[in-house]
């Protein structure tokens, strides 16, 4: 309980300080005009993104550039991690060979539950991502939910189980590149018809076959979904390479 003493002092200070500060603070009940503008205009209004989800329309339409570069921050982080753990072709093949202390994974109960849940995850994450323009959620949220599936498989079975089914690091990277190029493409398309970069309305149709798709938002969400899911998979596949294998590579390189 000794570790609690600083904490109690801190809490008492907080309450005391709050008692002094309180009368000086205004109460925040009004919206800022800019926030009100977004709320009023995101679906109705003259400056509309045709999406009822205001946060997503800010993320991908009003302030789309931020999100484009946010995605590239994530992209660069993954490339940086790959650079730190880089393997050449021979080593990559070797890393796929099963390690000496290979175990079959956790118990049967966990495995079967995981199998059921993985199937559910695919449906849930797709619905989070593809309804991103109507309900909370969107590309990143859906993609990170999608990434639970490979992560669960890595832990409950092993990383070799993923690789045997064809989802290795190179594949994940390819999916990721496709997703990112898709995002870039959707951002660049408006230039062809004389618009601005990342423009949504009126270049993309707001409705497709009677369904509200909010112009470019659904494409962005879909490609981001792909990119984020594949990106997390690549990161964790890289992390799951056993330490012994990696140390062997490093020792061999040092000897050469």
């Amino acid at each position: 309980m000794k570790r609690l003493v600083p904490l109690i002092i801190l809490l008492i200070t907080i309450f005391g300080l709050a008692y002094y500060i309180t009368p000086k603070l205004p109460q925040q009940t009004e919206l800022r005009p800019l926030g009100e503008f977004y709320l009023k205009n995101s679906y109705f209004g003259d400056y509309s993104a045709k999406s009822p989800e205001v946060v997503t329309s800010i993320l991908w339409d009003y302030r789309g550039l931020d999100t484009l570069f946010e995605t590239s921050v994530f992209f660069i982080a993954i490339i940086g991690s790959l650079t730190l753990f880089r393997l050449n072709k021979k080593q990559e093949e070797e890393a796929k060979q099963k390690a000496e202390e290979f175990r079959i994974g956790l118990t049967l109960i966990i495995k079967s539950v995981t199998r059921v849940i993985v199937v559910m995850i695919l449906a849930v994450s797709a619905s989070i991502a593809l309804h991103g323009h109507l309900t909370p959620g969107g590309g990143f949220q859906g993609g990170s939910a999608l990434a639970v599936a490979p992560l669960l498989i890595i832990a409950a079975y092993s990383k070799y189980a993923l690789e045997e089914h064809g989802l290795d690091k190179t594949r994940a990277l390819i999916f990721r590149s496709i997703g990112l190029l898709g995002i870039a493409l959707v951002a660049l398309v408006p230039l062809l018809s004389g618009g601005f970069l990342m423009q949504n309305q009126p270049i993309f149709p707001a409705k497709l076959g009677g369904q509200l798709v909010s112009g470019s938002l659904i494409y962005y969400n879909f490609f981001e979904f792909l990119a984020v899911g594949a990106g997390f998979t690549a990161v964790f596949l890289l992390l799951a390479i056993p330490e012994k294998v990696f140390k062997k590579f490093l020792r061999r390189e040092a000897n050469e």
Partner: protein
Amino acid sequence: MSEILFYLGAVMITIGGICDLFGALGLLKFPNFYIRLHAATVGTIGGAVVPLFGVGFLALGADFLPHKYAIAGASFVTGIIVLLAAPAGSHALAYAAHKTKIVKWEPKCDHLEVEE
């Protein structure tokens, strides 16, 4: 019909709250990890799955809610996921604890020990 669903949901939520509280108390009071697992089951199945299904029924029965089918669907899905994941999660923890022997206890007999 909708009232029955509503009250069914309300009862389930209440039961869930009580189970959750008892589960939490059990988790706090029980002496070691393996006994706490019992309380954890009460806390997760009784305290999370039952109220989640209850929310689903309540939403189906309530006429004052917007998008009631969305709420009901999402809470049923969450309920099923928790129903699957909670026991498997506790099982994984118990398995790990038993394998690594990090929990100090003196069992009368340990069947798992005998099997291995």
